[in-house]
């Protein structure tokens, strides 16, 4: 799977994104308790873990929409949370993000959605914008759907349009938030192919947040397993598949019982059935 990565030969040693000792809590609930991660240039890095472990939160931290209570996140050498508002917006132009729902603007057409960042950030003439939009839409195979409204798209198509929009400004990286959730096998296959293809063709760095083990392992160069606010394990998909950690085995193979118990913590079954409330 790992053919030519344009970015790959660029300094393997200095990661594109550096996450160092990040702590974050929402209300009284601790989400991250000292997380370190590196995201290499030109690679697809996956973050996997059970639902509710704050994978989406991590993407928002990287995008600067949330602020960690301690620790630092550097993107392309800049500390995201020390940037001024203007600089942060400048940096975000280099980031694309694909939301779970697609987050398309519902009141304008597919074409206008993809054109939106171009019209907001550039002063290109309309004919040029049309060319660019059609190119991006063609890349995701939806050039023919340009006149549809977002409400007329299926979930998978909406995500592809959102992907076309995310690459409209030719970003350096794309963050995918649960790209495979709730997709039929065909759309899933399309998305898997697109993520790998775009990563290689555009020399992007990609971060995929997911709990779909099979699809994610098929495209990821490196995987972080996150649970309970910590990185449980990391390595290439092959390394993780052969890991001797029980927890990793349970997660990677989707077993019902293991270190994470099938039963939610409860009283003794027999006692409970006899109706003796403590």
């Amino acid at each position, binding site marked *: 799977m790992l053919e030519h990565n344009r970015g790959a030969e660029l300094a393997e040693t200095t990661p594109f994104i550096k996450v160092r000792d990040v702590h974050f809590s929402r209300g009284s609930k601790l989400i991250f308790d000292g997380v370190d991660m590196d995201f290499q240039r030109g690679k697809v890095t996956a973050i996997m873990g059970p639902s509710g472990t704050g994978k989406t939160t991590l993407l928002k931290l990287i995008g600067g929409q949330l602020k960690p209570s301690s620790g630092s996140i550097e993107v392309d050498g800049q500390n995201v949370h020390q940037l001024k508002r203007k600089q942060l917006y400048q940096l975000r132009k280099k*980031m694309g993000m694909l939301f779970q729902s697609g*987050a398309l603007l519902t009141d304008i057409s597919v074409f206008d959605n993809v054109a939106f960042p171009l019209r*907001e950030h550039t002063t290109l003439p309309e004919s040029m914008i049309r060319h660019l939009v059609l190119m991006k839409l063609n890349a995701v195979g939806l050039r023919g759907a340009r006149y549809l409204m977002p409400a007329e798209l299926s979930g998978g198509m909406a995500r592809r349009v959102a992907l076309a929009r995310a690459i409209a400004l030719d970003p350096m990286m794309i963050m995918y938030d649960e790209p495979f959730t709730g997709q039929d096998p065909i759309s899933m296959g399309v998305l898997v192919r697109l993520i790998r293809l775009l990563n290689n063709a555009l020399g992007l760095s990609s971060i995929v947040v997911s709990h779909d083990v099979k699809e994610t392992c098929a495209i990821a160069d490196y995987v972080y397993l996150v649970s309970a606010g910590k990185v449980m394990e990391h390595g290439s998909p092959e390394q993780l598949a052969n890991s001797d950690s029980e927890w990793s085995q349970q997660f990677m193979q989707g077993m019902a019982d293991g270190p994470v118990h099938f039963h939610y913590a409860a009283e003794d079954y027999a006692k409970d059935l006899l109706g003796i409330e403590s």
Partner: protein
Amino acid sequence: MLSYLQRLGAVSISMFERLGRGSLFFVNIVFSVPSVIVRPRLLIAQMHSVGVLSFSLIVISGLFVGMVLALQGFYTLSDFGAEGMLGVMVSASLIRELGPVVTALLFAGRAGSALTAEIGLMKATEQISGMEMMAVDPVKRIMAPRFLAGLISMPLLATIFSAVGIVGGYFIGVGLLGIDEGGFWAQMQAKIDFSEDVMNGLIKSVVFGWVVTWIAIFEGYDAIPTSEGVGRATTRTVVHSAFAILLLDFILTALMFGDI
């Protein structure tokens, strides 16, 4: 008792917190207004959904309110033999009070709730978050045009409401009840003062437009991004707007017309 006091304290703290957040949000919007003026297209689109779509409601309500005022006023005034004052009564009540207040209440129900629901749903479907990640400031792009559109539309709607209402009163008074047409208009012109009545009514409607749009946009922006949260925010918009309108109306009326 202690827990009751604690709860009271918690409620009032969260109230002040919301008020503070709302005020900061408002300041943010005000600073974003210049970016809307540079791009009038955004404003025009919002003027359509906020103003034009409320137009028919306002016209029909205004017409009927004016007609009812004329009918009710006629029976009271005719006891004093002062039917000629009907025009004054209709136009003074409309221009000073009912025009701004009823329009603002209808505006909160029609445009305010729609604004909250729209922005709340945009938040729930991650459109606002997505816009931020595309390096587009949602306050500039989404909130400020809507705020400005509300601020401009509300006085226009209130003026239309009053004007249509007076015409409705004219139909009933002159057309149906047979009051002298000349007297109807002449008395009105003699009694209604431009700066005292018309301008003060206009100021009221601008203030109401400001408060309703502010509440509506803030509630949407601050809504919990679930369908239930958006529903609640929409209800809050209408309820809080109504309270704010009536309270401000009392204060403004005391300041403007309370020349004791």
